[in-house]
């Protein structure tokens, strides 16, 4: 049975990737840009979910790593002659280092206290970026960031984003399924017990935070490629809240839940705000419905429904 479902899943995966690959041939530019954004935010939400859904950590201010990744890449590209690929990686590394430094302090606390401290420290980083005009451009941000020609067009940046997102998702998936990921899920369910079976809980969580920060940084650098701008709002806490909500709407116990959540939130933001300035109201109503009726998120709900169907098929096959 397992073999059957796994070949089916691989089939679905290939089909989805093929559709994404062919999309630019059919869609107008605006939609290609929109899907690039969905991929970027999807990767960001998935990186948060490493520690949120799989680690049980209330990382309330994840966007700091996104913003710092984006700023690091942007600053390297505008102020130095470092090749693009190194500038791109510098974003992820800077985010991972920041995550390590913040993690050393925050990992001592748990649950809500962790979240509060994380918001405070993250807001400090935001304030620095916002105020340091001579270096970061303050609230003007940085515009017209030079990106290599081959990936600067709409389609070029789309394919680059798609490739990087796929690679990152694959790596995150491997990490979640590895013993490291198993132990992380153990810590999520029961930190005391995890310690009692020999897992160094704090160190394990710290490493998970660094990994989440790293991939958050990659998402930030991708945004630079897609949008060619950075601005301080990228690390303001309201965006973190939005990314947190993406995980909840899509399903924080499903691997692709955050991707789905990101697509939904971006679509709502883009299309509903075209009709009304009160788009946040629609967003709020969707949120209320999801929390009431789909506590495991949209994908979590679909997965639950799919399971009994599989078992039914098995019985029919006898």
């Amino acid at each position, binding site marked *: 049975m397992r073999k059957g479902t796994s070949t089916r899943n691989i089939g679905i995966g290939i089909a989805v990737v093929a559709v994404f690959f062919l999309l630019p041939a059919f869609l107008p530019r605006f939609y290609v840009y929109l899907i690039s954004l969905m991929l970027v935010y999807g990767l960001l939400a998935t990186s948060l979910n490493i520690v949120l859904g799989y680690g049980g950590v209330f990382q309330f201010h994840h966007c700091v790593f996104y913003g710092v990744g984006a700023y690091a890449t942007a600053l390297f590209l505008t102020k130095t002659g470092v090749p693009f690929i190194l500038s791109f990686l510098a974003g992820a590394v800077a985010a991972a280092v920041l995550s390590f430094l913040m993690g050393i302090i925050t990992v001592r606390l748990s649950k809500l206290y962790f979240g509060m401290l994380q918001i405070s420290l993250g807001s400090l980083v935001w304030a620095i970026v916002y105020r340091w005009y001579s270096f970061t451009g303050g609230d003007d941000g940085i515009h017209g960031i030079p990106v290599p020609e081959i990936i600067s067009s709409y389609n070029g940046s789309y394919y680059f984003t798609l490739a990087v997102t796929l690679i990152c998702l694959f790596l995150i998936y*491997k990490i979640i399924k590895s013993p490291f990921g198993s132990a992380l899920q*153990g810590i999520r369910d029961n930190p005391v017990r995890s310690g009692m079976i020999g897992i*160094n809980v704090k160190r*394990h969580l710290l490493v998970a935070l660094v990994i989440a920060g790293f991939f958050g940084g990659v998402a930030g650098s991708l945004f630079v490629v897609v949008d060619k701008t950075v601005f301080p709002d990228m690390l303001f806490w309201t965006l973190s809240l939005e990314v947190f909500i993406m995980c909840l709407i899509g399903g924080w116990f499903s691997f692709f839940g955050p991707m789905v959540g990101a697509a939904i939130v971006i679509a709502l933001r883009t299309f509903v705000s075209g009709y009304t300035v009160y788009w946040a109201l629609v967003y709020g109503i969707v949120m209320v419905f999801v929390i009431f009726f789909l506590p495991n998120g949209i994908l979590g709900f679909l997965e639950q429904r799919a399971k009994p169907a599989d078992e039914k098929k098995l019985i029919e096959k006898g």
Partner: protein
Amino acid sequence: MAVNRANLEVEKGEIVAVIGPNGAGKTTLFNLITGILKPDEGRVFFKGEDITGLSPHNVCRKGISRSFQVVNVFERLSVFENVRIAVLSKNRMCWNFITPSAKLLGDETERILSSVGLADKKDSACSDLSHGDRKVLEIAVALGASPEFLILDEPTAGMAPEETDRCIELIRNLSDTLGLTILFCEHDMGLVFSISDRIMVMARGSTLVQGTCEEVRRNQAVQDAYLGGDDYDVS
């Protein structure tokens, strides 16, 4: 102060019970041994080594593992995954980021599950298990760390009579076949006197007496403080 002037000695291969009224400090004593709490005074020695104040994961790596009074497992994972985490940790594989867990240590996990009689339920979500099975899973997770010294905090609490019998069988088996040293606390006096080599009696955080079943049964202080009460039938 929950525990004060408590003495406990456990010899290799023994089954030792800690008894005492509710609030006597039995669980606190276990928490002190396993590093969940740090003592203000006093020392804990294991195989001649001072392990006082070590953090729980280091205590576990010395070879001490425990189960909890209230079932304390990994709720979102299956029975099999619950035990496998402990086995992975024991084999120091928790820093492996590459190999899928599903390909690792399946046999060892399977062996532990069948030794406690949960093999046929290995794919169940642990929230679907009966209370008795959950208490057994609780022990199985502790066994996953392959300890030399196993601490069981009220292993049969809340179990139906036939489940209790199964649990007694299991504890005997662990001692006989694996040669585990077992320390447990329990309110079921029948169970305590039937499987313990020695018993330690606690009251208000202190040790009243530690000795063989016979010595404890005859001890006047114990009679007065505990066994003489109407709640317990020693016969």
